[in-house]
């Protein structure tokens, strides 16, 4: 009796854990025709998880294709996908924590080479077939890179964290996020000049409007009790106006409409503001779905179609909402992890 029971217990002990635990694995769909006028969705991925990915929403907006870079090039994109920049027939994918930039063909996304050895690259601006600038979070310098030989050819010393870099009317502007400054960059002599203090903390994005004025969006520093807001400067970086946020909520993703008379940005939802307005609109342009915090924003320049990303809990696949220019919800897509930015062909 005792022995039988013993055998039973032993069997129970040994085999109580035999249920299958294999996760359901959904293979990525085969890449269909990507076409032109794609929407590039930058999925940042999780820090040190190496799961950054590129998603593409095709022109007709019928479908999203995830993990496109990995599938086409048969290699992993890397850790923390920060931004995309286009130049001619190439696109440059800035992979922040991998310290690299992947150059790909803009149409078929095939890898054309990698610029490695950067510290913590954020944004990229190509000024010629071979020369480009890369801003950096930790390097305290803007790197000058050669996009043909894939070498770092020089460093432009800065103080602190350089963020967005853009060219408007032939002039290059750069944000310094940690010092809250905006500079112009002379691409002939590789020098920074005309630095202006923005006045609000944490500038993260800027645009030039129809009047040639520059709008800088500052995220604020809630932990130091400092509000963010919008700062308007003229093309020569003379400060014209400051419109602070009314509370400590963070703002990001400033985008202008094609004609440059209105600005979109995220601040407690999606805001749309005319460039002649003097205060932050109190109502959202589209209603934020319950339980969603918009993490990113992109506007298709020609159609005005609005793309909004939801990172959910930042540790799972995100969601992308597509609205028409007039604010009607058209589509929802499942993206990769942390959809942080949108780019348009």
């Amino acid at each position, binding site marked *: 009796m*005792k022995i039988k029971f*013993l055998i039973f*217990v*032993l069997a*129970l*002990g*040994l085999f*109580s*854990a035999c*249920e299958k*635990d*294999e*996760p359901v694995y*959904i293979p990525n769909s085969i890449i269909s025709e990507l076409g032109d006028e794609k929407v590039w969705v930058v999925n940042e991925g*999780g820090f*040190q*998880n*190496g*799961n950054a990915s590129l998603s593409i929403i095709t022109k007709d907006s019928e479908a999203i294709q995830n993990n496109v870079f990995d599938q086409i090039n048969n*290699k*992993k994109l*890397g*850790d923390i996908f920060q931004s995309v920049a286009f130049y001619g027939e190439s696109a440059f994918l800035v992979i922040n*924590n*991998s*310290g690299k930039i992947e150059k790909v063909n803009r149409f078929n996304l095939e890898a054309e080479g990698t610029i*490695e*050895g950067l*510290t*913590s690259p954020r944004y990229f601006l190509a000024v010629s077939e071979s020369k480009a600038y890369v801003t950096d*979070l*930790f390097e*305290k310098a803007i790197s000058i890179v050669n996009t043909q030989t894939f070498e770092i050819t020089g460093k432009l010393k800065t103080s602190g964290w350089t963020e967005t870099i853009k060219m408007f009317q032939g002039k290059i502007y750069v944000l310094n996020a940690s010092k809250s400054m905006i500079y112009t960059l002379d691409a002939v002599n590789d020098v920074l000049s005309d630095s202006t203090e923005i006045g609000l903390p*944490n500038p993260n994005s800027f645009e030039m409007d129809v009047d040639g004025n520059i709008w800088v969006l500052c*995220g*604020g*520093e*809630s*932990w*130091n009790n400092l509000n963010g807001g919008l700062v308007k400067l003229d093309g020569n970086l003379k400060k014209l106006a400051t419109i602070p946020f009314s509370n*400590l*909520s*963070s703002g*990001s993703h400033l985008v202008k409409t094609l004609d440059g008379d209105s600005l979109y940005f995220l601040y407690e939802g999606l805001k749309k503001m005319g460039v002649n307005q003097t205060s932050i609109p109190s109502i959202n342009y589209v209603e934020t*779905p*319950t*339980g*969603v*915090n918009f993490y990113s924003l992109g506007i298709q320049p020609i159609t005005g179609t609005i793309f909004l990303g*939801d*990172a*959910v*809990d*930042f*540790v*799972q*696949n*995100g*969601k992308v909402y597509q609205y028409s220019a007039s604010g009607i919800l058209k589509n929802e897509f499942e993206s990769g*992890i942390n959809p942080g930015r949108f780019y348009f062909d």
Partner: protein
Amino acid sequence: MKLRVIILFVLLLLMHTSFEGFAQKIDSTITIKPFEVVENRWNIFTAGTKKQNLKSTVLLDEPTANLADLLNQNSQVFVKYYGMGSLATTSFRGGSASHTAILWNGINISSPFNALIDLSLIPAGFMDEISLNYGGAGGLWGSGAVGGAIHLRDNHQLNKGVSVEIGTSVGSFGSFSAFAKAGFSGKKSSHKIGFLSQSAENNFEYFNPYSNKNELLKNAQLKNQAIYSSHQFFINSKNHFNISAWFQNTNREIPPTFIEKNSKTNQADQSIKISSQYTKRFNKKLGLFVRGGYINEYLEYNDSIRSIYSYNYANKAVGEAELIFDKNQHAFNFGLNGAFADALGENYLSQGNQKNIAAFVGYRFISKNKKLNLAANVRQAQQNKKVVPITYFFGADYKVFDWLKLYGNVARVYRLPAMNDLYWTPGGNSNLLAEDGFTEEIGFSIKLDEVFEKFSFENKMTIFNRNMQNWIAWVPNGAIWSPQNFLEVWSRGTETYTSISFKSNKLTVRLNLNTSYVLSTNERSNAANDASLGKQLIYVPLYTGNLNAEIGYDKFNLIYQQQYAGYRYTTTDNAQFLLPYNISNLAFGYKVTIKSVILNSSFKINNLLNTNYQMVLNRPMPLRNYQVSLTIKYRKK
């Protein structure tokens, strides 16, 4: 020739000091009388819980092993390593790393910063006893005893004479350890001191799936020194005083992950820990225990690539007084506990501090026929004047036969927010509540000694359930992350322990098997698109198991170890995961005794099958590697 081969392969030996010693350890929790050990709550008020005396179940005796390695190979606790020589944390029954209470001589030694402890830095060889209390017992052990509690203890005895032990081990990737321990126990006092020094380069080669080639791990050096000292003074038969001090200094480089080209990060940890206890025995029934503890931690982190340099200090002082009355069937206790901590440094804009106080009472009943043992404990805690829900523990053991015991308990458990949760700049949330929840478990244990004369068999099986609420999660709040009492987590599962042994004159064969099945799922979400609802928590494997097998013959022994962990998810929607791993080790030992000197040598092959695996995403683990150890023990009465 053939015979020799057979002897070599089949015959082995026990690496424990002696079999008597082993047996004594097993029985210690049963036979020891009240007031003779340092921490009595463990012996008197823990009916209905599953306990494991870790050191007695360890087959492979490695004096320089750390607690993480011992738990990983010999318990049902899942240990998560960030790499070789790196941070190692626990998950007890699907809980978080801060859901394990670690008590050293009765003092909770979890870090005031983050309420957890790096198990890879605990020198297990200096601890006389390491006991695990599976399951939640907040009423007994206070904050953090949610998934389980680990008790580290010094055990002093009088008139044991002088003992000296020195040892060293040398292994692959530049690993070197040396230790020395000395003990003296006389008529009135007992003393132990120990010193441990470890260093390793950890510069192993691994396959990098991102670059598709083999790479050499860089910036992975470890240097660790520990000094340990423990004393007991028997003032007279009614008054004892114990004091232990433990100093540790660790410098670690943090290697790059697969995706980082290189790393120039290093971390320095320094800690001073002191525990003391004054025991006053009024008579045979009544005793008073006054405990005091102090912890000082310094943590420095330097990442020269990202220009991050930070340093933080924390101090914690613990005081506890406990009165125990134990007479025949009934026992009672009553106690007060106060823990005061402060943190200072770059990430604490203003000095953060915590005042945690608690009162606890307990009752134990043993039936006349000694078959039934009941325990009830209630604890009321408060943090910074904020009252934590009252916690309790009710447990029962029932001996159906001498060889079969049934046990079960219900408990309410809690975990207080740590200094980082409350005061970290930016993001800390000083309004956080304690995490709290309910646990239940039932189980049985079978112990058959000397069935068929030479065989012994032991089996334990437990089914548990736990529902936690107000689980603290750091969630983005605009640009910064901030902790919130947010998640609800439901954990449930089974654990088994099976041990079979055969012992004859010179031959010993033993086999220990641990398995666990843990479902730990997220039950709450505020987010509309949250696919994590109902899904397994990240880094909690559904299945884990380990096996230790030993064949010993006379002076030789051969030990085989195996560890398995199933899929571990790395995203909350369970879309990404790490593959299961199955790692085996093989050790060969030889022991000789010359008068009062015991010489112990061993050769160990880790990761015998050269398996490529990851415990934490993108952090490489070493392939096959080797280790040679030698220890010399001397003992004189």
